């Protein structure tokens, strides 16, 4: 958290101390608390966590698309500019052109009464009003073929396309304006595995080809392992652990990550007795536990965990963990674990 917001050409988006608080009748709910991370250019970052851990809120906060009842504080430096300071006009230009989002349900994320071509042409017209319709259509055609949809499908309505095709159209809507960051919010969850595999392949292809960054929000660990360069694990609105995918999955540091990985079904499941089930329930965000939010469920819980919230500390190059096991504190009694490089 003490990282400085340096202008770095490699870093596309820097998020510093982002807080999202919903006002509800039961009091404020802090859905995202004090989150900081970077997204590099051309990087695929996975964001995993349980339902209700604040993943989707995170994604929407990046688009600045949260309802008014949500209070957002912190810094979001996108390509050197603070998005939090944007006004409504700048935001509209920012959305779609710089950053784009693919939603969970491909069945409902396209306007049912608009043709595919209209979707693409409109997206172009919104941001580049001077573009002629013919050239916009031409761009749409090229792009849609590039994404593996026949150009004669352009005049079709969304319901005439399969789920995978619709998701590809949504990706196309982000790409047609050369967005720098595409947020895929559970974009593959409702697709079957074959289509999902294709889409994953496509994500990588477009990353290589267009140089966009991707933020993949999912609870599918296997997808993250397959697709992402880095992964951030969220728990109760905080980042538990962040690091390169291989390192995090080979050697999870945070107890939550360990539990999460153990509860992924495995083909050799019968070797173990049963799938690991993490004790306890996700905490209420209206009234979060004191100290570390994970301590009521943590198998390694210590005294200090009840009282003080740890920091998200860099324990090895590129690896950060939000846990007292790896952090020193005067009140701590047990020795701190050193992470081998």
């Amino acid at each position, binding site marked *: 958290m003490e990282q400085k917001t340096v202008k770095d050409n490699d870093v596309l988006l820097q998020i510093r101390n982002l807080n999202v608080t919903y006002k509800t009748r039961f009091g404020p709910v802090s859905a995202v608390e004090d989150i900081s991370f970077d997204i590099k250019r051309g990087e695929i970052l996975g964001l995993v966590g349980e339902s209700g851990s604040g993943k989707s809120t995170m994604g929407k906060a990046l688009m600045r698309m949260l309802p008014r009842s949500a209070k957002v504080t912190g810094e979001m430096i996108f390509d050197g500019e603070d998005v939090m300071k944007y006004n409504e006009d700048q935001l509209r230009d920012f959305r779609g052109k710089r950053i784009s989002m693919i939603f969970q349900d491909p069945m409902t994320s396209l*306007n049912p009464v608009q043709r595919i071509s209209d979707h693409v042409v409109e997206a172009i017209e919104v941001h580049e009003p001077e573009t002629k319709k013919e050239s916009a259509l031409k761009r749409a055609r090229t792009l849609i073929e590039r994404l593996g949809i026949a150009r004669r499908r352009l005049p079709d309505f969304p319901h005439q396309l399969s789920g995978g095709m619709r998701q590809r159209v949504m990706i196309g809507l982000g790409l047609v304006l050369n967005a720098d960051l595409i947020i895929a919010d559970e974009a593959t969850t409702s697709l079957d595995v074959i289509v999902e595999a294709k889409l994953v392949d496509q994500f990588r292809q477009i990353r290589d080809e267009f140089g966009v960054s991707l933020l993949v929000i999912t609870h599918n660990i296997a997808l993250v392992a397959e697709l992402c360069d880095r992964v951030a694990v969220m728990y109760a609105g905080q980042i538990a652990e962040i690091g390169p995918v291989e390192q995090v999955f080979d050697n999870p540091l945070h107890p939550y990550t360990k539990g999460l990985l153990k509860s992924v079904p495995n083909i050799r499941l019968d070797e173990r007795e049963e799938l690991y089930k993490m004790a306890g329930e996700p905490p209420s965000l209206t009234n979060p536990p004191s100290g570390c939010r994970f301590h009521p469920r943590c198998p390694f819980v210590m005294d200090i965990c009840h009282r003080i919230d740890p920091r998200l500390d860099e324990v090895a190059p590129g690896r950060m963990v939000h846990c007292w096991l790896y952090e020193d504190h005067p009140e701590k009694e047990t020795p701190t674990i050193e992470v081998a490089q």
Partner: protein
Amino acid sequence: MTAQMTPNPEVEGVLTTEQWRRDLDRVGFVRRLLLARKWYGGDWWFVVVSAIMLIFVIIVGVFPQWFAPYNPRAEVGPALLAPGEVPLGYVLVTRGDANVTGLIDIAQPSNNIGFVVGTPASQALRDAVNRLKEEAREAGQTANYNPRPRRYQTIEDGLQALQENNIDGFIMNQSDAEAALANFPELVITGGLTEAAGKGFIFGTNQIGQDVFSRIIWGTRIALIVGLSSAVVAFVLGVPLGLISGFVGGPVDRVLTLIMDSLYSFPSIILALSIAAVLGAGIGNIIVAIAVVYIPTYFRIVRGQVLSVKEELYVDAARSLGHRSIEILTRYIFPNVIPSVVIIFSVNVSDAILTEAGLSFLGLGLPPDTPDWGIDLARGQDYLRRAWWLITFPGLMVSLVTLSFSMLGESLSEILNPRLSEL
């Protein structure tokens, strides 16, 4: 998950979308026509039937004089003549020695004229006397034509009385007269009071002898003007208000909803009645009064739809692509809301026709002699047991127009909604 799994654009979707096109190429012309529903997405013959019906109704409404055989306001025949019934000619029977040349000779208040009670003969007499008065007035004379009517139970009683010189004349229909006079050689037929029309009236006549068919034809015009205009006015005001209310939300929504709900909670006829009473009679005011009643219907439907559509993912997606609110409202929300409004519109047109009828019935609508289905219905219900045709035909027309409007509305909404055109 590997690089060789490049997506093949030809595989997906071919069977679902293209199959029917190929089917269509293989079949003959008639089959192709039957398969044509797939071109439109709806049941095309539904559209055709309702459109033909509506076009016909509209032509009738625009040019009623082409279709109506009589003036709708004129009393062209005897009262309450059943459809197709040939009106009987009524004749005046007098004694042969009385030297009466016509009704005019025995129409003084001192004269007695008989007829069988409860027959149209009384109407014939009244009409004939009125005609005499009319002629006298036109000629500038002041004559008091007012013979005293004498009612008899049977024809024989009446003719007996005539033979005995108790009355000066007797009125009966022609065919009865020819049969009965054989028994009364002293009596002669002096002349016809009303002429036997060669043909009857296709839908009969009403209680004051107006042609029901002509009134229905002319009533189409009023029905279309009032029904369509008030529905259009309600549509034009209700839909944008509903869109704004649902989309903007907050205090605007609350205030608008409060107003609309209070309008809606009024019984519609009472609301229309009070508005019409304030504005006064006349077709424009009727249209306004009815439109106000139906604005909340549109408002509520549209607002509810907007509330659900605006939570749809594609609205979020549109926002994430940087669309402005106004574009989202007009291009994303409005097209998804409109199919349900089209149906309301078609129902609303027919409802407005009925409300207009109710207003006219209560005397706050159109003048009572206006040829209007509502007025005809309202007045015809008094004669329900004696003259079924008075309410049957106007009622049929209301149902027919309602039906064609809703059929058209429904099939249009099917065509307009691409989701329903799924094969």
